[in-house]
C-alpha cells in the first residue's frame, strides 16, 4: 500500500476530473469500436447449407483448328512407337495438331501401381511416342497427368511412365489438392459443384488422351472416355451408381485434340486392374482419332463386345461428344507389318 506510485489515482474518494474524463473517453472509444465492428460483421441470414464456390462449366475445347482430311486411323502391328507414328501421319502429321510453342497436356491412365507388362495402365512406349511427336512438332512443354486410384508416385513410377517422362523431356503433374476446383457441367445431373483437376489446364493449349483397352465389369469397357474419370477428384466412386451417366457427362467436359487408344494388348478379363498376364490378349491395334467416341467404338470390338453391352458410347454420341459408328468416319486402315 505504501508502495503505490505517486502519479496513480487516489485509492478512495476523490477521483480527479481529468482521470475521469480519460476513462470515459477510453470506454466510449472501445464501445464504439465494438459497435462498429459488429455492424460490419452483422449477418442476419445465418450460414448457407453448404459453401458455394464459383464453379467452372467445362475444361475447354482443344480440337485442332484446321484438322486434316482423315479423322481416324486404325493401325495394325506390334511396335507401339511405329504404330503411333504411322497413325498420326495418316491424320496429316502431328503438325496438324501441335504448333510451335504449344503446351500439350497428355491425360494417361495411371490408375494402378502395376508394371506396364500387366496392361492396366497407359504403356510407357506409347506415351513416349506421343510426347516425342509433340516435341518434334514444336511443343514447348509436354505435361502428363492423372488422378490415379493408388498413390500417384507409385503409379507413375511402377508403370514406367515416370521413366518415359524423364527420357522424353516431359513433366508429370501429380494430382495435388490445389489443382482441384469445383465444376458444374451445364445441363449435367452428376457433375455439379464437383472437384475436378482443372489446375493442370493452366496455360495448356492442346490435350491428348492416351488410354489402354481394358475390360470393366461395371462400365463394360475402360477406354478413352472412361479414362477421363481421372480428372475427377473427391470421393468420385459414388458415381458408379450411374456409371454410364457419369461417363457421358465426362465426355462433355472437354474436346480433346487427339485420342490414342492403345489396343496392342487388350485386357480381356479381370479388369480394370488385371494383375495376371493371362488376363491379356494380343490384339495388335493402335487407334489414333480426333473423336473419342469413335475410338472407343473400336475398343469395344477389340474386347469382343457390342455397343449394346457398353451403353455409354451411344449415350456420349447422343450427347454430342462424337460418333459411335466409327466406320462413318472412314478410318484409314494401316498395317505396320506390311
Amino acid at each position, binding site marked *: 500500500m505504501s508502495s503505490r506510485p505517486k502519479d496513480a489515482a487516489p485509492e478512495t474518494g476523490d477521483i480527479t476530473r481529468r482521470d475521469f474524463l480519460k476513462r470515459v473517453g477510453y470506454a466510449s472509444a472501445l464501445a464504439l469500436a465494438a459497435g462498429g465492428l459488429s455492424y460490419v460483421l452483422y449477418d442476419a441470414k445465418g450460414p448457407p447449407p453448404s459453401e458455394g464456390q464459383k464453379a467452372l462449366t467445362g475444361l475447354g475445347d482443344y480440337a485442332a483448328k484446321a484438322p486434316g482430311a482423315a479423322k481416324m486411323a486404325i493401325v495394325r502391328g506390334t511396335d507401339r512407337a511405329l504404330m503411333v507414328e504411322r497413325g498420326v501421319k495418316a491424320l496429316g502429321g502431328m503438325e496438324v495438331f501441335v504448333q510451335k510453342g504449344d503446351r500439350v497436356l497428355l491425360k494417361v491412365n495411371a490408375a494402378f501401381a502395376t508394371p506396364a507388362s500387366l496392361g492396366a495402365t497407359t504403356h510407357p512406349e506409347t506415351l513416349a511416342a506421343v510426347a516425342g511427336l509433340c516435341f518434334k512438332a514444336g511443343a514447348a512443354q509436354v505435361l502428363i497427368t492423372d488422378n490415379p486410384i493408388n498413390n500417384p508416385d507409385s503409379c507413375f513410377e511402377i508403370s514406367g511412365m515416370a521413366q518415359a517422362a524423364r527420357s522424353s523431356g516431359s513433366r508429370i503433374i501429380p494430382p495435388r489438392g490445389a489443382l482441384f476446383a469445383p465444376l458444374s457441367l451445364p445441363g449435367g445431373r452428376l457433375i455439379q459443384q464437383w472437384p475436378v483437376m482443372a489446375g493442370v489446364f493452366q496455360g495448356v493449349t492442346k490435350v491428348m488422351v492416351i488410354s489402354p483397352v481394358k475390360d470393366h465389369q461395371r462400365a463394360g469397357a475402360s477406354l478413352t472416355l472412361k479414362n477421363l474419370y481421372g480428372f475427377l477428384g473427391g470421393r468420385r466412386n459414388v458415381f458408379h451408381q450411374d456409371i454410364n451417366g457419369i461417363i457421358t457427362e465426362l465426355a462433355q467436359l472437354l474436346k480433346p485434340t487427339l485420342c490414342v487408344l492403345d489396343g496392342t494388348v487388350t485386357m480381356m478379363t479381370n479388369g480394370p*486392374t488385371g494383375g495376371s498376364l493371362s488376363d491379356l490378349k494380343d490384339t495388335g491395334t493402335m487407334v489414333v482419332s480426333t473423336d473419342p467416341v469413335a475410338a472407343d467404338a473400336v475398343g469395344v470390338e477389340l474386347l469382343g463386345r457390342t455397343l449394346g453391352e457398353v451403353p455409354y458410347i451411344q449415350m456420349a454420341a447422343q450427347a454430342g461428344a462424337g460418333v459411335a459408328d466409327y466406320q462413318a468416319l472412314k478410318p484409314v486402315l494401316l498395317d505396320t507389318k506390311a
Partner: protein
Amino acid sequence: MRIVTVRRLSQIFFLALFLWFCVTATLGAHWWQLRGWPINWILELDPLTALATVLATGTLYKNLAWALVTIALTLFVGRFFCGFACPLGAINQFTGWLGRLGKGTEGRVEANGHRRAQAVKYYLLLFLLALALMGSVQTGIFDPLPLIHRSVNLALAPLADNPLGVLSDAPRSYVSAWLLGFLFLGIVGLNLVLPRFFCRFVCPLGALFGLLSRFTPWRLGKTTDRCGDCRICEHYCEGACRPSGKIIGGECVLCFNCMDRCPADRLTFATKPSAAGEAGLPDLSRRGFVVAGTGLLLTSMWGIGGLAGANRNPHLIRPPGALDEERFLARCLRCGQCMRICPGNIIQPALLEAGIEGLWTPAVNYRLGMSGCLPNCIACGQVCPTAAIRPLSLEEKQGLGEFAHQGPIRMGTAFVDRGRCLPWAMDRPCLVCHELCPVSPKAIFTRTVFETIREGEGLPARVQGQTVVLEAAFPAHTNLISGDFYLRPRGAPDAGLRRITGLAGVGLILERPLTGEELAAAGGKVDIVVRLLRPFVDAARCTGCGMCEHECPVSGLRAIRVYSENESRSRPGRMLI
C-alpha cells in the same frame, strides 16, 4: 581444437544426419529419396534395441550388430553416445542451455547437482530388460532413438511438410500424432525444469550406457583431491555426475564441459582413477527394485488377456509380412519407420488396438491414406530394423515363383456389410470394390439379380409405336436410361426383361420392342427393374489388401471392410481349411 568444439560438431553432425535420414525415408527414385540411404543406421547403433531383441528372440538380427560398435566404444571410453551422438541428447542439451541463458552461477550449480532420482532410469532399464526376457520388447517406448524417429517422422515432419508438400504430394495423416507430438514437446520442455531432464531421469539407453561404462580404462576425473570451492566444473555439467567431488562415472555423458572450464586444469580424461574418488552408479535403493518388480508382475498379466490368441482384435491388421502377434511384440520397436515409408500412408501407430502392450505398433487403417496396400510394394518389411515385419520379396508377397504353393501374403479378409452395401441394401448399382480388387482372378465376384425398384411396381403403361409410355410420370431422381434399368411386363419371368436404352419423347425405347399383346397379357402393367451386380468375397483369394475398403463409396463406415480373419501370420486367425 577444443574437445567441446569437437563434441558440438559431432552433435550437429548426428542431428543433421538423423534429420537427413528422416527426409530420405521417402519412397521414390530421386537422389534424396530412399535409394539405399541407410535410414536405419542410427536405430541400429542402439545397444538397448540389440540387447532387448536378443533377450526376447535369442538372436541378433542382421544390422543390429552395428550396436557392437557402440558397445565397444562405450566399454572403453564411457557414454560418448550421449554426449556426442544421440540426436535427442543434442536437442535436450541445446534447449537446456537455452533455458538457462542469463541465469546466475548459483542456480546453475544447483540445477546440475546430482539427484537421487537419477537412479530411476536404472530401475526402468531393469524392468524393460526383464520384460524383454519375458518376450515383450517395450524398450522403444522410452528408448530415445525410436522415440525421436517416431516423434519427428509421424508428428513434427507432417506438421512442417503438409503445407509445403516437399516430402509428400498429399498431406500425410497419422492417427494420434498429437499425442506423439505432446510427449516429444514435453520431453523437450522438461529441459527448462532441469537440463537434460529426460537423459538424467528417464533414458533407459543412458542407463545401459552407465552400466557399460563400469570398467572404462579412460574416464573423467580430478588430478588432485585438493581443489577450491568454485564448482565452475558444475556450471554446465550435463550428466549431473558431480565432477567437483566423488564423480559418478556411470552418469558422466562425456560433455567435457568440466574439463573445458576448470580454471586450474584439475580435470582430465585419463586412465588414472579420479583423485577425489569415484562412484560407478548412483545409489540404488531397494524401493526402486520393488517398484520395478511390481511393474513386471503387472505386465506379466498382459498375457492373461489373450490378445495374441483367442481374444485377437479382428480390427488389428498388421502390415504384410508381420510376424504372428507374439513374435511380433518380441521385436517391434515402435520406431515408426514402416509408417513413415508406407507410400499409401495406411500404416498407423496403434493406440490400444493391439492392447497396451502394442502401443504405437503398426496397425493398418484402410480409411486413411491414398489406397489399400499396394500389391507391388514391399517397403515396410524392407525398412523394418528388427524384422518384426519380415523383408518380403515381391514374389513372396504375391505368391509367385517358389512361393506359388503358399499363395500371396494375406493381411486379412474383406467382408461385405450387406446392410450398408448399395447393391445389397439400396437397390443401387455400384461395384467399385469389384473393380478395384487387384487380385487376378478377382477375389470379389458378383452375382446378378434383377430387382423391381420401389416406385416401379405394376405401373400402368401403353405401347406407342416402338416405345412404351408410362401412364404416370416417373420420379425424376431415377435415371431410367442409365443402362441399368429394365422393363418387364408385370408377372412375366426374367426372360421378359428388356433393357431401357433411351427416350423418345415420353416413350421409353427398349432393346427389344414390347408388343401390345404382351402388355395386354400382363394386364397393361409393367415393372421397372434394376440390374444389380452384388459383390461376394472369395476368401480363398482375398489378400486383405483393403483396396475395396479404401475406395468403397459408403464413406463413413465402409460397406466392405477388412478384418484380420485368415491373415497369413496368425495360426489362431486361420479361417479356411
